[in-house]
């Protein structure tokens, strides 16, 4: 593998890793603070992608579509938490698993009824529809760089929020010990609502951002969900830092694996997870 | 001089920056009750966790019946004759008293789980197990509550079940963490009588706040403050120890 190729794969790894991070961050916080297993998290990713497709189709403007889509997902997240998830924080994990199973079925059907079962593509906006020429034969799409920039900004923003703001402190307190956080006067109900809506929005946003690159298809949710789980397990529940580290690690292993060992590429990530489990069954950065 | 059944040497436990237990040594002998007292946060429960294997020690060594057992997990120590009761009642709440005791009594000579014999025999037909459960039931005065679900028992009876479960494993060493916690006067009296009866045949460690019970039962007292032992000896020695009076007995809540 020559240098240019290596560089491209590295960029791809980081981009994929950061995308996974957007999804995993929400998931790990929802796990860590509310203790909820949410299998439908992948569905939000899928719904985000389909929303991008539908809204871009209607308005011919991806940026506007993403903005609207984010607002819709925040409201959806807020509503779901209030009506459904809130009542399951103290239920057993099995009950939560089942609830979110049911939701997956329902979301799949809704998507099927609204937008059908076909694979769709979303056009890259004209302003980003060019490539940077790296060598005579290799070029890198500008949209990917744009995504990289956005995801880095979001990751940075999330890190700043979690570690430098009062809200972030409350979130960390909630992730560490929910009951104690409540006795310390933190409005835990509002915190839960916020974290959940944020998680849903991040997942949907990830779906919207990836739509022009990977196209929009029915099972994209379940595929990314597994990767998300792996990231959260490796990183440790409740740790955003862990989610970032693990997501980048997974991005690297998966991307380079596909290039170097294509037949076993999809398995490599699980081997990584197995190794982590041997030495740290609660993840690398467990609270 | 008989050998101690349980011997701890310089046990320490560090949680990040906090040294919860600092170089504690003690020995437990048969037919003797060794009480550990101290103010809240002195590290008594952490010490108990270290002795029972619930948490690993940062440093120090442990011997059980002459065998070096440092670092052994609690299930292994239990099989080797170390029984421990918990401060917060830790029984199988949805099961009846009898079922709780049967599960405890079964542990001592349980077959390995991958031995098919353990899949096909009936758990309630093993005579040894039945005998141990029955004895624990009688010893702790729970005969009347045999078929009651643990969750609906009164607090005092639950605490008795807590002890009974340990007895059903037929241990040589008993570590009792605040058995009298939350008890009224009458219940406490019953428990003290039970503990007194258990002294013979066992080496006992008692962590307690109830000073009346402590002085009625203890043969040896160790006083801990902030993770360190500040005094250790007979009840009379401890009662007249100036350091102890200053640090603890003056503010003791009976």
């Amino acid at each position, binding site marked *: 593998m020559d240098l240019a190729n290596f560089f491209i794969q590295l960029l791809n790894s980081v981009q994929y890793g950061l995308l996974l991070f957007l999804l995993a961050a929400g998931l790990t916080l929802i796990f860590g603070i509310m203790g909820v297993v949410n299998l439908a998290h992948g569905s939000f990713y899928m719904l985000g992608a389909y929303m991008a497709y539908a809204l871009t189709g209607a308005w011919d403007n991806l940026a506007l579509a993403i903005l609207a889509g984010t607002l819709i997902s925040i409201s959806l997240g807020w509503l779901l938490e209030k009506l459904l998830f809130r009542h399951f924080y103290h239920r057993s994990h*099995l009950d939560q698993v089942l609830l979110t199973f049911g939701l997956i079925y*329902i979301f799949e059907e809704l998507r099927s009824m609204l937008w059908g079962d076909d694979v769709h593509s979303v056009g890259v906006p004209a302003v980003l529809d060019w490539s940077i020429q790296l060598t005579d034969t290799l070029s890198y799409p500008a949209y990917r760089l744009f995504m990289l920039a956005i995801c880095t900004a979001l990751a940075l923003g999330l890190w700043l929020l979690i570690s430098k703001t009062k809200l972030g402190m409350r979130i960390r307190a909630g992730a560490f010990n929910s009951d104690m956080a409540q006795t310390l006067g933190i409005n835990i109900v509002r915190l839960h609502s916020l974290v959940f809506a944020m998680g849903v929005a991040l997942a949907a946003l990830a779906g919207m951002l990836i739509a022009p690159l990977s196209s929009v298809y029915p099972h994209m949710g379940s595929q990314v969900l597994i990767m998300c789980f792996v990231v959260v397990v490796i990183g440790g*529940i409740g740790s955003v830092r862990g989610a970032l580290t693990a997501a980048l690690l997974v991005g690297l292993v998966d991307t380079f694996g596909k290039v170097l060992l294509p037949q076993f590429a*999809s*398995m490599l990530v699980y081997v990584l997870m197995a190794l982590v489990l041997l030495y740290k069954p*609660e993840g690398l950065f467990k609270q | 001089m008989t050998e101690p059944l349980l011997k701890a040497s310089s046990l320490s436990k560090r949680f990040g920056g906090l040294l919860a237990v600092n170089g504690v040594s003690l020995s437990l002998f048969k037919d003797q009750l060794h009480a550990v007292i101290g103010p809240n946060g002195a590290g008594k429960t952490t010490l108990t966790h270290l002795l029972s294997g619930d948490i690993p020690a940062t440093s120090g060594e442990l011997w059980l019946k002459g065998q070096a057992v440092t670092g052994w997990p609690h*299930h292994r120590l239990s099989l080797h004759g170390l029984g421990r009761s918990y401060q917060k009642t830790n029984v*199988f709440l949805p*099961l009846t008293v009898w079922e709780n005791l049967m599960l405890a009594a079964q542990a001592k000579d349980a077959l390995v*789980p991958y031995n098919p014999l353990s899949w096909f025999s009936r758990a309630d037909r093993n005579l040894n197990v039945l005998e141990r459960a029955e004895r624990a039931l009688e010893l702790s005065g729970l005969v009347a509550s045999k078929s009651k679900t643990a969750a609906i028992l009164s607090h005092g009876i639950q605490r008795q079940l807590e002890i009974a479960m340990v007895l059903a494993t037929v241990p040589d060493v008993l570590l009792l963490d605040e058995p009298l916690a939350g008890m009224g006067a009458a219940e406490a009296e019953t428990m003290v009588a039970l503990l007194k009866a258990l002294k013979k045949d066992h080496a006992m460690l008692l962590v307690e706040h109830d000073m009346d019970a402590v002085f009625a039962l203890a043969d040896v007292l160790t006083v801990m403050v902030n993770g360190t032992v500040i005094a250790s000896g007979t009840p009379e020695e401890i009662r007249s120890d100036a350091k102890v009076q200053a640090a603890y007995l003056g503010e003791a809540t009976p």
Partner: protein
Amino acid sequence: MSAPQGHLETLPRSVQVLLGLGLIALLAFPLAGQDFYTQMVTRMMILAIFAMSLDLLQGITGLVSLGHAAFFGVAGYVLAFLSPADAGASWLTSLPLAVLASALLALVIGFFVVRTQGIYFIMVTMAFAQMVYFLFFDNKALGGSDGLYVNVRPAALGLDFENKQVLYFFTLACLVLTYAFLRRLLWSPFGRTLNGIRLNEHRTQALGYASFSYKLTAFTLAGALAGLAGYLWAAQSGYVNPELMGFHMSAHAIMMVILGGMGNVAGALIGAFGFELFLHFFKDLPKVGEFDLGKHWQLWMGSLIVLVVVVAPQGLMGMLRPRRSQDD
């Protein structure tokens, strides 16, 4: 709701009667029904074995596995590998080998997975099952996404699975044996300890039980029984593909166990039959005007699951069990 229930293993009288009648019905069924229905019921029985194997893990030991289908699918693939292109394999050899393969896989995966707790366990079981799924999906040598065929069904000792009735009764025998074995297990020292682990693992360890060993054994046994079901599935359908090991299949199993009620094996059995009946019912719904109700069966199935979780989390068993005051 979140506190574990104690006496899950008790069977209400109504259920005992139901099971007895069910057995008689199952014995008489093929003699009265057509081939199509015989196949349908065989399928239900296979899924019932699959569901009961999961109950051992979930209802009895308290381990929620989202990857149980891995062991179901692998056994089917073993049969496909062992079946020559133009003749049937001997089930006398291929069945034990398939079950052994599933058991070994369960032992290996279990070794990594059983050391985790709670939410982690759920996630890693799902992840490892996906790994197995991808192993088969990505490799043409293992059949790839197209899967493999069992061209001629197994036969041995004069029992040929090409004969639908023979397969039916063989499956019924496996069903009864699995049920009996698991019921026996419930009352055994092993089963009592698993129950203890489910209710309070910490105290079970404190009493002297090496809970890791117990959980791993349960995981392996459950995997082996899932393999039995998977083998029969491949023997019946003649076709295996990676979806048999996929997430949806694992989800299928969990829902069957929940619908019926966990922890007493009978619930899983009833739940499997119930789930399949609901599925057929929803899929066969007619069109109402322009709206094809049957086509959107996932919506109804999903809503049913949500309803069960919210209203009757103990499943059918929970509804049939007499309410005891101040108990459980």
